């Protein structure tokens, strides 16, 4: 087991390294002169040379990569030229918001999807099942950002129950929570549609297996069999999907933060893009990609931990 973990962890680190290389290459090798971008086209060659030296752009590519990655390992992502402050600081400011949004959206997704999936499976071929299937088919087709607009139309414009956007800061937790409600719901509904289907079909698969019958025959109630025997088995393949879902949610926050004007990492990326602040974009893309990769890694491990049949094969 330890060997397995060690192998997987080195795999994770290797992947993260590879990701950093790709990000670096894409952002630095492709055409475009950052100095011109920063100073403007009509800047003097001297000023350009000075900045070039300052930014370390004269060094060979490999050195620049190593310097950058060493900095990243220390937590130093460089200094944003458009904001004038260290990128790490910018990230630290905005990370709590993005993380809260991502985590609460994932939580809501899982809760909704499990409830709907179990409900649909236990009402197989009856109205409840068709209802859930139809709803989820629609849910998959709806873009999260459009759903956000509809939610804003209903809850903010018409009913005025919730704010249409913006974030009041953490000092007032209640107001902060209210600002996160619509974004969380928008993200979660769309993801839950996908996850509910997967849960449902997994449940149906498991329900056909013999041990369901065995458990019933010993006198257990149908609901107990459903929740204590069927669901845990059905969740095994679902867990892998949740990992992917978390990655989706994280990239989804990029869009949603822009819909709701939330000052998180997603909005930061876009501000950086409009400012042509390549260093910041580079750092943020790396972060997001790292989150996706790590989430998948965690899920891989979980999968083996959950299913005893897989554990044996590692020995």
């Amino acid at each position: 087991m330890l060997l397995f973990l060690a192998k997987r962890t080195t795999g994770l680190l290797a992947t993260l390294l590879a990701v950093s290389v790709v990000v670096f290459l894409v952002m630095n090798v492709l055409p475009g002169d950052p100095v011109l971008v920063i100073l403007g086209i009509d800047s003097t060659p001297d000023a350009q040379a000075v900045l070039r030296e300052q930014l370390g752009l004269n060094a060979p590519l490999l050195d620049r990569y190593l310097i950058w990655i060493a900095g990243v390992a220390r937590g130093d992502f460089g200094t944003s030229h458009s904001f004038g402050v260290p990128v790490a600081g910018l990230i630290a400011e905005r990370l709590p918001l993005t993380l809260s949004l991502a985590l609460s959206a994932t939580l809501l997704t899982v809760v909704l999807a499990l409830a709907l999936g179990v409900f649909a499976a236990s009402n197989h071929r009856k109205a409840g099942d068709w209802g859930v299937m139809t709803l989820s088919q629609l849910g998959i087709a709806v873009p999260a950002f459009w759903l956000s607009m509809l939610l804003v139309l209903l809850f903010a414009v018409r009913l005025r129950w919730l704010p249409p956007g913006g974030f009041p800061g953490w000092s007032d937790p209640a107001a902060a929570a209210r600002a996160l409600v619509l974004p969380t719901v928008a993200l979660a509904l769309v993801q839950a549609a996908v996850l509910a289907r997967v849960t449902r079909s997994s449940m149906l698969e498991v329900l056909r297996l013999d041990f369901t019958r065995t458990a019933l025959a010993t006198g257990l109630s149908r609901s107990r069999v459903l929740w204590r025997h069927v669901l845990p088995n059905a969740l095994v393949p679902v867990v892998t999907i949740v990992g992917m879902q978390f990655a989706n949610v994280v990239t989804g926050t990029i869009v949603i933060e822009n819909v709701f004007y939330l000052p998180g990492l997603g909005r930061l990326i876009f501000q950086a893009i409009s400012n042509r602040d390549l260093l910041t974009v580079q750092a943020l893309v790396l972060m997001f990609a790292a989150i996706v990769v790590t989430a998948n890694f965690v899920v891989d491990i979980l999968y083996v931990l959950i299913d005893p049949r897989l554990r044996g094969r590692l020995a």
Partner: protein
Amino acid sequence: MMRMRSLPVNLLLGAALVAALTLAALLSLVWTPHPFAAIDVANRFQGPSAEHWLGTDQLGRDVVSQLMAGARTSVAIAFVAVVLGGSVGTALGLFASAAGDFVEDAVMRLADFSFAFPALLFAIMLAAVFGPSLANAVVAIAFINVPVFARVARAAANQVWTREFTLASRVAGRSGFSITVDHILPNVAAAVIVQATIEFAVAILAEAALSYLGLGVQPPAASWGRMLSEAQTLLYLAPQLAIYPGLCIVAAVLGFNLLGDGLRDVTDPRLSRRQ
């Protein structure tokens, strides 16, 4: 042999939606009720009328024409991206399956690696470097299709390799390449086509998100996503402008998803009998 019973509902419904979408897209090349980019500020925010069936937007442009032009954008981008990414991915998957052993592992590992870069992230990188454009969107969406098709093609191909007629061909001394073309490909085609329709749906959603964020097609080209982002600032004034493009997106994506599901039901009867 398939009996000609009635085809599943989702297949028919999906096909109808997709057909409507494609028709609108193709039609927009030669005709729209009004030139879609024609600005007529004096007549902005008009409601539905005989002249403008769904009214006009904030610049007086005809909504129906914009929607049709947007259909063209979505279909074109989705098509190019999926065909591009799909061919590369399928070829990779077939190659991996034919090569076997550690080559297969290496290729699949590589394909899996690209899952770390969701389309959005990749498009962001490209946009930061090159500036936003239609080409970026296409490349980014094509990029994420490669590993998906590689996986599907490889899995399907692996199944075929173990069947008797393939083994017979190998014993007869035929090369991996010719076996792949003659035997594997036709059997893999069904799985790949089903995946393609689903990836079309994904591509349309991705393009909408990208152009919503301003990373895709640039004005004056029409796109449903861009229409939505413009409508967002006008939610209090003209909420209907936010509804139409969204409905189009939903209809298009729904159509492709249903079509894909229907095709899957039809080509893999085992699955359809279960649920």
